[in-house]
């Protein structure tokens, strides 16, 4: 069988270093680092970049960690630094609100991913509509997409389109999907949505499938790809952006990005920023293998350190209990319960 010829196809690349990458940095990216990364992305011709707390607008919390600066401060600093790129934000209803979207827009954000779990699109109606009312490029972002069938994803995508979403994303939050899973979901969406509605894919590299999945998405009709330079993101990171651009160049897919500038940026700016090497570690592979939300990784490692239950065991249990994005509180809860069951003495106060 021949792989489809994608020569001449255009794909809009959306960098995630300064949003999903916040997770890999325990939300601790400085304003100076944000400006430096955004400036380099802009110079390399990356057309879209996302800037917020890892959990998006409203993300500063005990549940998701506190960044050193407000979302407004980050967005304003980056908006002043970039010349060409469009700034986007993440908004998860139930955490972020329209007030915060309004404030992000005032600071210079012009695009928004409105994210829900892959079966709960109808919690995003007011936020998608509000993004459009502000004149923002508005995407619906269906997280943990492996937990819904292709038909289910198509139905949820149609809902988001009906609220005003101009793009619908298949989001592989757990890095669980294989190319066939991606193809089936994107193709179902392509059949269900209006021709003018775009489709995006957001991958995580937990099973090493970030690039292959993103290419499968394009072959099935996607025209937007989320990625991050050097993969800086939750779990084993996002689809590594510079690698993806190299593959696109070889295949004749047009990205408009400067490959060598991105290679230099990965090596000289992003890798030195990493607190740990973002790669397919034992725990990250467990996320992909068990279908667990990538952001849970560092929380589970913290719980292991405090309660003496291995992170891998906690992650597998979270998968078994069908926990989804946003339930970070259940990591400590699960670790406490497992420690009790295993007879590990836990002190109430740390």
């Amino acid at each position, binding site marked *: 069988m021949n792989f489809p010829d994608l020569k001449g196809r255009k794909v809009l690349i959306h960098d995630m270093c300064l949003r999903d990458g916040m997770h890999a940095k325990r939300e601790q990216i400085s304003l100076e680092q944000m400006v430096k990364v955004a400036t380099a992305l802009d110079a390399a011709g990356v057309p879209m970049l996302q800037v917020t707390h890892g959990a998006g607008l409203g993300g500063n919390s005990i549940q998701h960690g506190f960044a050193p600066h407000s979302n407004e401060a980050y967005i304003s600093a980056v908006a002043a630094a970039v010349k060409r790129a469009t700034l986007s934000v993440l908004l998860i209803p139930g955490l972020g609100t329209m007030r915060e979207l309004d404030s992000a827009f005032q600071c210079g954000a012009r695009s928004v991913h409105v994210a829900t779990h892959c079966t*709960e699109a109808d919690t995003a109606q*007011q936020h998608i509509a509000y993004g459009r009312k502000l004149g923002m490029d508005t995407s619906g972002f269906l997280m943990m997409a492996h937990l819904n069938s292709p038909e289910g994803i198509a139905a949820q995508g149609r809902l988001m389109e009906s609220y005003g979403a101009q793009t619908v994303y298949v989001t592989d939050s757990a890095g669980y999907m294989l190319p066939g899973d991606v193809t089936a979901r994107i193709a179902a969406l392509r059949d269900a949505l209006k021709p003018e509605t775009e489709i995006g894919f957001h991958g995580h590299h937990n099973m090493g499938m970030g690039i292959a999945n993103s290419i499968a998405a394009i072959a099935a009709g996607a025209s937007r790809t989320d990625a991050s330079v050097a993969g800086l993101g939750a779990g084993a990171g996002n689809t590594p952006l510079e690698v993806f651009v190299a593959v696109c160049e070889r295949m004749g897919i047009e990205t408009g990005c400067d490959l060598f500038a991105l290679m230099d940026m990965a090596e000289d700016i992003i890798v030195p920023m990493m607190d740990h090497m973002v790669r397919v570690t034992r725990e990250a592979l467990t996320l992909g293998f068990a279908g667990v939300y990538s952001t849970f990784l560092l929380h589970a490692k913290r719980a292991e350190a405090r309660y003496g239950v291995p992170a891998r065991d906690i992650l597998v249990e979270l998968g078994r209990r069908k926990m989804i994005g946003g339930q970070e509180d259940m990591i400590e809860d699960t670790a406490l319960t497992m420690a009790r069951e295993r007879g590990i003495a836990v002190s109430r106060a740390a």
Partner: protein
Amino acid sequence: MAKIRCALIGSGNIGTDLIYKLRRSDVLEPVWMVGIDPDSEGLKRAAAMGLKTTAAGVDGLLPHVATDHIQIAFDATSAYVHAENSRKLNALGVMMIDLTPAAIGPLCVPPVNLKQHTAKLEMNVNMISCAGQATIPIVHAVSRVQSVEYAEIVATLASKSIGPGTRANLDEFTYTTSDALVAVGGARRGKALAVINPAEPPMIMRNTIYCLTDDAPDVEKITESVLAMIGEVQTYVPGYKLVNGPVFDGKRVAVFMEVAGLGDYLPTYAGNLDIMTAAATRTAEMFAEEILAGTLKLPAPQEALA
């Protein structure tokens, strides 16, 4: 013993579950169910359970308020119509228990501030939100021991238990609950997070309560206060259960709770809906006891104009 006669407005899940709760009460009696759709399941069920029904909205109830001696009404419709419902019924001397996010009247969490509201006549009290009812008692249990700079709660709800109204207005839920963590819980700042989980079989409602205290938390006193408060909530919500905690990490206090419903009309996983109907019933009972004892007097009901 005489009972206070009640009307239920809104014939959905909440209204129907309230029938069960009120029928068990020693001081309340469900008499009327008000809906807007004559073909609705809720109205048919209410009629089958012996209630008088109208599909003409609150206006269909008004002519019967005096003759049927209705003194308390529960509104489980929506924030948009609550104000008008409340105005019409208050004018006839009927007290309103508001289960919508409208929050016209004072916010009420039974074990925290109900006594203060029953001490004087309130013609409209608001029940905040399910997450508020499930978490504010714990925030208060910490803040009555020592000052809380910030309270944050995470409510995880089974997808099947969340109706279209809440889904379409998630921001309202967030704002109402966040504000109540401060106004009733006693924290200086508050933030509420909601997660909707579609797992099958449906998961039981979970609530995590975080408090940041100003000074190092007193582990013994806070633990004792939290456990005592859980006991108080259990008197009207038996499925209110501590899963883990309180655990202390620096100035952070964390309590991990689960709320199972009674399974009256709503399945047990829908602890979020059950805690609202149970809290509303508990609130109405406290007022009803005062009214029956003669310590609280509602304005005399007037005949509705024909």
